[in-house]
């Protein structure tokens, strides 16, 4: 934490090397957020890069009393939400989901790897059914273990709004999972559990 503040101060004085250290420290959280929000590796890479560049150019607006991670993820999540809105569709059905274009390879894979890929597909398919402003709180809750207050800070919303969004998002996820189970889509929770030998 101490070291992080030193890097921030150095970056503010124009030290790019110090900012590089910050990128190294936060590349996975920022990339993961972009990946979970946007659903494919190429767009996630571009969005994560843009989030870091925006953070660098706005570093003077960072309030040191806040957690740097929250501030950085706030930039990334707002950028991803804007990007999703520009795509001109907020809600897509499971049938409309594109084939998986992520890191999964075409080669035969060991069973564990296959299960992991199916699980990742299932997670992304479910996330893709949520509108962007519901997707972000869910991601921050599950992958970053943020409290309601922290999510509210990142999203510039009240805690009660976050509670409401998480509740509604979970309802949507349950409906989407049920729908996928009924349609017997390969990328569902059921399929993952079957591949594990029922669970």
């Amino acid at each position: 934490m101490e070291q992080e503040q030193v890097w921030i101060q150095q970056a503010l004085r124009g030290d790019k090397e110090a900012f590089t250290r910050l990128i190294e420290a936060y590349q996975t959280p920022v990339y993961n957020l972009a990946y979970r929000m946007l659903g494919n590796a190429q767009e996630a890479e571009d969005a994560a890069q843009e989030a870091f560049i925006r953070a660098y150019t706005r570093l003077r607006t960072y309030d040191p009393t806040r957690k740097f991670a929250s501030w950085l993820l706030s930039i990334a999540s707002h950028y991803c939400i804007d990007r999703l809105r520009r795509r001109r569709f907020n809600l897509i059905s499971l049938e409309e989901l594109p084939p998986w274009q992520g890191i999964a390879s075409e080669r035969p894979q060991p069973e564990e790897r296959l299960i992991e890929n199916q699980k990742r597909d299932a997670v992304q398919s479910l996330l893709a059914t949520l509108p962007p402003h519901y997707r972000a709180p869910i991601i921050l809750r599950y992958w970053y273990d943020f409290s309601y207050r922290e999510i509210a800070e990142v999203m510039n919303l009240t805690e009660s709004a976050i509670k409401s969004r998480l509740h509604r998002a979970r309802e949507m996820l349950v409906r989407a999972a049920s729908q996928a189970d009924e349609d017997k889509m390969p990328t569902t929770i059921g399929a993952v559990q079957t591949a594990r030998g029922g669970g």
Partner: protein
Amino acid sequence: MTSNVQASKPCPQFSEQMSLALDHQLGAAAERELREHLRTCDACQAQWDALQRVERLFTTAPLISPPAGFTARVSARLVRRESRQHIVFGALSLVVGALILVPVALASAGKIVRPLYSLYLLMTTPAAWRGLFVITELLSLVESVLNALRLTIVACIRSPGVMVCLTYNLAVLVLTALWLRVLIGRLLRPVSVLRQA
């Protein structure tokens, strides 16, 4: 179980409580009440089970890391973005500088035309008059320049606004020169890089 969720809706008063319970934000009493309700309500129990399945799926999903070399790619993009901003800023300075220098150039034009005309006359008049003509015109030119300098100095002393304007013009000229230096350096760089390659 899935069909249960769709067949009958969970009770609205417990629906949000389930979400709070998953986040451990429900008080002990409220959680006890929820547990008791789940034992008696099939729709709510089915919803709770479905929520927990989603919960398990999401809580066990790992963080995904970017492909190797991410930091270097961001740094390179940052450098590109900054140099583009410098070029835009330089071009803007150049345009502003040029716009400011246009009236200055127009004002000087009057002073330039007369000596040029004199020079023309000098070339066309008989040789006897040339010497006298040259001296007269040179004296006239020196007088004009000295007069202009005197007026500028007096104006600068009397009006601080002119001083600011001149300083600004000077700054614009310096910025324009710097920008041209950067631009020329940038134009030449690819050639040197290619040579190195």
